[in-house]
């Protein structure tokens, strides 16, 4: 089901100040996609999620789910959360500690007054789906973090909602488990015809899981796009910076040349992915560390060739993280871990124009 959010605002009042948690948000979440709200803490992503699910009331605007208006300030409509028929996985999982796994998962069905036999079947089916067969009788508190997380998922899915919401569901897991669970979650959701709204502040999680990402800042949605679009081709400097590590270089646009937009900056004259920015205006050149390619002296004719000197070198396992000084700039580069380089060496590197991203200041 599609979710439509029109002009939604939410204010908090604390110590005489008004904080805009959501500031006139307009958003359409397409049906049957994994849609992620990404942003730094305090950007309003959780508030937006809670407004969709009905645990919080916006101060203005309208929200509709699958064509049905569930909240509207003007029309004075407010459907309580229990009548919205959604599923949600909480950050703390919110597994009820006084119930068994079965009771936890059966709860949404019991509330809907289903027959005992149907409930048993559907709980078994859902537990099988999240690979928790045979856990029915366990007390919920006797589970590991990852298992609790899957019980929470089963509970959210058991009533077969058309929309499921996730509020940072992986943030309480340790790093290794988080990665595994992320993959599982992706696989689970891929099998279902379901709209998933996912809130996280973890960019890797967002990139790995989502069909679409909306990046938020200070109560506003800055940019929406596919993970690749957001990572490689962001329109905003904030988005480019937030989604991954980036070297941001001040640049002035010179004009167009051979399908590239040419800019002048500390690194020299650089060919970038084409953008419609007027010649003479200022922009930010964004280069991701992994796209800085060290070359030997022979590739002198290559495009976007820059010379610099290695200032520091840190071995982090899968790569060497180097700081390369070019003029008054210091660039972070991820280079081959077995490259024979040491601090103080002069190096040349190339920048693929396809990965030289120009963003508005």
């Amino acid at each position: 089901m599609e979710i439509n959010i029109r002009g939604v605002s939410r204010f908090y009042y604390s110590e005489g100040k008004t904080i805009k948690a959501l500031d006139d948000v307009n958003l359409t979440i397409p049906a049957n996609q994994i849609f992620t709200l990404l942003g730094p803490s305090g950007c309003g992503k959780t508030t937006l999620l809670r407004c969709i699910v009905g645990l919080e009331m916006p101060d203005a605007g309208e929200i509709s789910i699958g064509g049905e208006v569930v909240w509207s300030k003007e029309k004075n409509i407010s459907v309580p959360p229990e009548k919205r028929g959604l599923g949600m996985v909480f950050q703390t999982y919110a597994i009820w500690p006084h119930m068994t796994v079965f009771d936890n998962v059966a709860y949404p069905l019991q509330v809907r007054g289903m027959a005992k036999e149907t409930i048993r079947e559907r709980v078994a089916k859902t537990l099988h789906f999240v690979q928790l067969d045979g856990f029915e009788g366990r007390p919920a508190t006797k589970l590991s973090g990852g298992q609790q997380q899957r019980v929470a998922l089963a509970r959210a899915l058991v009533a077969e909602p058309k929309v499921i919401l996730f509020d940072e569901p992986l943030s309480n897991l340790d790093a290794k488990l988080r990665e595994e669970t992320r993959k599982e979650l992706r696989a689970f959701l891929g099998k279902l015809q379901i709209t998933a709204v996912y809130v996280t502040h973890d960019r890797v999680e967002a990139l790995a899981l989502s069909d679409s990402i909306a990046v938020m800042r200070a109560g506003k949605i800055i940019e929406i796009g596919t993970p690749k679009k957001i990572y490689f081709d962001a329109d905003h400097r904030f988005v480019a910076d937030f989604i991954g590590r980036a070297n941001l270089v001040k640049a002035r646009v010179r004009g167009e040349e051979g399908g590239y937009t040419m800019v002048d900056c500390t690194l020299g004259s650089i060919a970038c992915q084409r953008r419609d920015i007027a010649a003479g205006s200022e922009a930010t050149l964004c280069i991701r560390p992994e796209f800085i390619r060290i070359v030997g002296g022979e590739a002198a004719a290559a495009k976007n060739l820059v010379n610099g000197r290695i200032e520091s070198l840190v071995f982090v396992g899968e790569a060497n993280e180097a700081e390369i000084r070019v003029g008054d700039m210091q660039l972070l580069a991820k280079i081959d871990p077995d490259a024979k380089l040491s601090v103080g060496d002069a190096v040349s590197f190339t920048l693929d124009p396809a990965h030289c991203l120009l963003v508005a200041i």
Partner: protein
Amino acid sequence: MDQRRSSKLTWLLIAIVGVLTVCPVVMLVLGSFSEGLTAFGDFTTDKYVEAYTNPEFFEVMLNTTIFVLGSSTLSTVLAIFLAYLNTRTDIPFKFLFKIISIIPMMIPHLLFSVSWALLLNPSNGLLNLGLMEVFGLDNAPFNIYSMWGMILIEGLLDLPIAYLIIAPAMASFDVALEESSRVSGANSWRTLFKITLPVLRPAILAAFILGIVRSLASFAVPSVIGMPGRVQVLATHLYEMISTGFATDYGKAAAVGMSVLAASVTLIVVYRALTAESEKYVTVSSRGFRPTVIELGKARMPLFFLVGILSFVLIVLPVAVLMYTSLVPYSMVPSARAFSMMSLKHWHDVLGDPISLLALKNSLFLAVVGATLGVILSVFVAYVIVKVKTRASGILDSLSYLSFSFPGIVIGVGFMWFFVQTPLYATIWALLLGYIATYLPYGIRPMSSAFIQIHGNLEESSLVCGASPMTTMRRIIVPLLVPGIVSGWILMASMFVRELTLSVVLSRPGTEVLAVQILRFSEDGLWGRLSALGIIMILITTSLVVAATLIGNRFKIA
């Protein structure tokens, strides 16, 4: 401290605490099988037969059951209501809740009961007189000297302790548990009964059980409210056996006391199991969303009004009534005439009464010396329990917790059997030992939490920095312990100033204490003097509690 020395210390403390807590119990058991105080050791089961075949006994048991269940239900329900309002809604003036939770420290139960007797007794209760005047009634509309009066007063008195158990549980409750129920399709009511209350069940049950233990041990309410109305419960039944002039029977009292003690100890064991259970209920530690505050809307002011009345009833009314009664010559409804007749006569009487002065002196002595000795013992016991983790220290932990479940009057009977065999009988030292033994857990608790705060690394890093163990003690450990020592001392001292239940058994002519003297005034109907002495007692305990709060704030580690 090396292992051998700490193990020696542990066994020494086990011996001391063991004598203090086990000895009265053993004496109670032996006493219940003895002929009498002067014929200790002559085995007989007569006392049990006599005590439990007494036709009155059945009625006493029935009354006790109704009384303890009624009052703990009342206090638990009120505590749930207040804790919910405070932690989950936008009710105004939340500081009132904090006041409600610490006030009983300042107003002794005995005086609270007396002030209600002054308000609602059927012959000249102020409120009754007022209502009769206003509505032209011939009879008093309320009679506090009844079972419902006892339940009401005891319920209100136990409310703060129930609140202190339930409120933190509610505050740390992960609201997502409720929210996920709402999202699952359950409405607010279903969520309340299926999720909120069941999750809080251990805390609620713990509050309820502690309420039962406390009302079972309560003597103030049954003696001031119950006895005039001839509603006998176990505590007053026991008291009558040992206080009514020529027919005192400590053997029978011990026999009856055995069942009270057994019930109480059992309940405390259940209580400890429940508190352990509630810790198990902690699932993923929540660093989620701040709890949503429920907007009360139209109900906000009426509900606040209710809380306001409750605080007035709990705090202002008792003190006001006592103050007023201490100034007027006899019970009369406040009026211009009453105010014109006010004088300090009762105050002069009390301050000129040698027994009252002796009681004051004794109580102050017991508070200062008792609390000092109690805290010194507590420091060592807490140190061993928290820092020396051996099997022996586990024994000490259980031993020191044991007296928490002792109903004062029963343990008083046990001590009586003990002290009669010693030269301590009828001296102030008997009271001193009894107080320390009975109230030791209240000293150990703040000390243990102070010790828990001192993480081993703090000591170790001082040693690594080159400080000697003595310097470490002086510069690191003692400064960190000061707040615990101070609050433990003040807690014990304020409890000793108002101690009643143990004292009514152990106090003899020459060793009167404040609470016993107040009880005598109450039995003789000398309300004016009672109120004056009561106000003095409240002043002492209040200034102790205020001092504790101030010192606590000053030492609070940011």
